[in-house]
């Protein structure tokens, strides 16, 4: 589904990301782990064509992301709170994204109903603007908004950060459900090795912009990763 070729990103002579080759087949759930500055967000930003690669390219379902915009209609993503529109209520935000992705109000309502448990009654019908929600609740809105319009690729940057323990467990359930769908490819980044191993079929570890591990998840994966990141 996603094919990365000779991709690198430099800032004033410093290479922050350098991926020779990475192929993510359709339906896979991939966890991207690494320390701060490993290049996780840079990779996602390149994948979403928010920054330009220094060399190489990424194709999403055969579409070069920096040449055409056609990938946007089947890709849902949430990088950080800057993806939210602060002066809208959560409902208005969902409907707005729905409008952009060709969904009508009923489609959105059906989707929101499905994730009512995940919202824990703190999001909908609260008469609050997004800017007045807590960071964790903002994140819940952002994550569910990526699922609008049945995307085939879902990209979540640090989805577990800032969430309370209950919501983390609910989010894992949500991601696992998505991962079971063979039509959906999921990319999740995290610092938290355990969460990532739990929800992903495959783990890619980045260090200083280079892939240092690429493993299919098994019972030993967590241990292997913890060994690698041990001090």
């Amino acid at each position, binding site marked *: 589904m996603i094919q990365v070729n000779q991709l690198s990103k430099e800032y004033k002579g410093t290479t922050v990301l350098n991926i020779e080759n990475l192929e993510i087949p359709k339906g896979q759930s991939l966890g991207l782990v690494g320390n701060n500055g490993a290049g996780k967000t840079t990779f996602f930003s390149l994948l979403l064509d928010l920054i330009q690669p220094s060399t190489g390219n990424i194709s999403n379902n055969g579409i070069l992301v920096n040449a055409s915009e056609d990938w946007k209609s089947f890709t849902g*993503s949430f990088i950080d709170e800057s993806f939210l529109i602060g*002066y809208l209520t959560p409902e208005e935000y969902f409907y707005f994204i729905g*409008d952009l992705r060709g969904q009508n109000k009923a489609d959105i309502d059906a989707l929101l109903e499905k994730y009512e448990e995940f919202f824990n009654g703190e999001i909908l019908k609260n008469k609050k603007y997004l800017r007045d929600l807590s960071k964790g609740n903002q994140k819940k809105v952002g994550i569910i908004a990526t699922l609008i319009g049945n995307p085939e690729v879902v990209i979540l940057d640090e989805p577990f950060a800032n969430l309370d323990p209950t919501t983390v467990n609910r989010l894992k359930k949500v991601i696992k459900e998505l991962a079971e769908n063979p039509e959906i490819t999921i990319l999740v980044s995290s610092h938290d090795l355990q969460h990532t191993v739990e929800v992903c079929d495959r783990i890619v570890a980045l260090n200083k912009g280079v892939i240092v591990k690429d493993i299919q998840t098994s019972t030993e994966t967590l241990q292997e990763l913890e060994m690698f990141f041990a001090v």
Partner: protein
Amino acid sequence: MFKHFINLELKAFFRSASVGKSIGLKILMGFLVVYFLLVFLVLGIALYPLLEKNFPDQSPLEIVNSFVIFWLAIELVFRFFMQSLPVMNIKPLLVLPIKKESVIHFVLLKSLISIYNIFPLLVVVPFGIFNIVKGNYGTLNMIGWMFAMYVLALIVNYANFLIKKKFAENIKAFLPFVVLGMVFFGLDYYGVFKITTLSGLVLDTLVLQPVLILAPIIILVGFYLLNFKYLKSNFYLDSSLQSKVEEAKTTDLSWTKRFGEIAPFLQLDLKMIWRNKRPKTTVWISLIFLAYGLIIYPNPAYDGFSPFFVLVGILMTGVFMLNYGQFVPSWDSNYYGMMMSQNIPMKQYLASKAGLMSVSIVILAILSTPYLYFGWKILAINLACALYNLGVNIPILLFAGSYNKKRIDLEKSPFMNYQGTGATQWIVGLPLMLIPTLIFYGFYKLVNAEAAIIAIAIIGIVGLVMRNYLLNKIAAGYTKRKYATLNGFKQQEN
């Protein structure tokens, strides 16, 4: 401590994404400042001889004293629209071991460096020296007077600070001041209560008794302390200390659906304007500017007609367009990354902005029709200007927007959020007003006024016909420069 603050400010200026644009504007501002400095200096030097010649039986100082109150009122209005107040990014400083007092003192004292505080000096000092040389008053008395005048200017400086602050929070707070000013003007004009005479008498007494200079100084200190108190009580982040969270009001905007594909963006823009203080203020300013013609048209100097009226027409029908359009797409800077990762056609996004500005122009043009009272030509000019704004100025503003890299923080606390509420925003609009004025002037001189009006209108219509084509071109520019825009919007600025 102040040394650190100054250092931070310099870095913020030179390291900002829009430093090129800022420096360009500063240079342009520099020229204007030099021009006005000269104008004021000439006024200051010429004032005494002029008054002496025209009113030989009155003391020039007494005449000036009686008009000081008007001068101060005008200065206040002028500063209100033109002077941008000093700002500071307080968030990172809040938790550091820095005394809040010193930050506030810094901000308040920084406002003294403003060029607006120099202008009155240029008039007051030469005029005072004339008075000393001509020997009417004692040297000490005149120095006291000059000092008092300067203190009055500084009082206006801090009064403006307070009013602007209140106004940013609540437009209605500004109304009592306007009403009060108009009442005094009216009473004075009809001779019921001569505030000019009264204020003149007070100042004349001050010249005779220099000790009285303590009074304005005490007022100045009072204003300073009021500001200080105000800033100190607001020296918090909204989110952490907000006592009541604004209740979200959902409005049904489904009527926008009839605009077809641009509907989602139109809804978003309307909500953006209505739910955020900053853009909401631009709406109010637009309505206030409709009164601009009232000041200009009856002025006998123009004799009922002048190419200058084009500038007035462009401004009156396009003031919302100017204030809103020059910050496209910065209004959406907070979530531009999300927009760019969604499947949105750039052209529709721009078409929605263009549509919103067009509607504002049409509404303002309709509201300005009562100016028919001053003659059909004025109405014709205003309508032609509206067409020109629709056809030419909107695409120009949108095109310029593709180079906008400056973030606007809609959600920032109202504490000192004055981005784009100073002289610069009007300077950016100057070419948009001057070009049609020059075109008009050319046709007016070569042919006649009717031809000039028709020419402006036709240029506007041509632009309107080509809008689709232009929007496509402009949209391509936005797409091409999106990486630079995204990078610029990531920078948090004051």
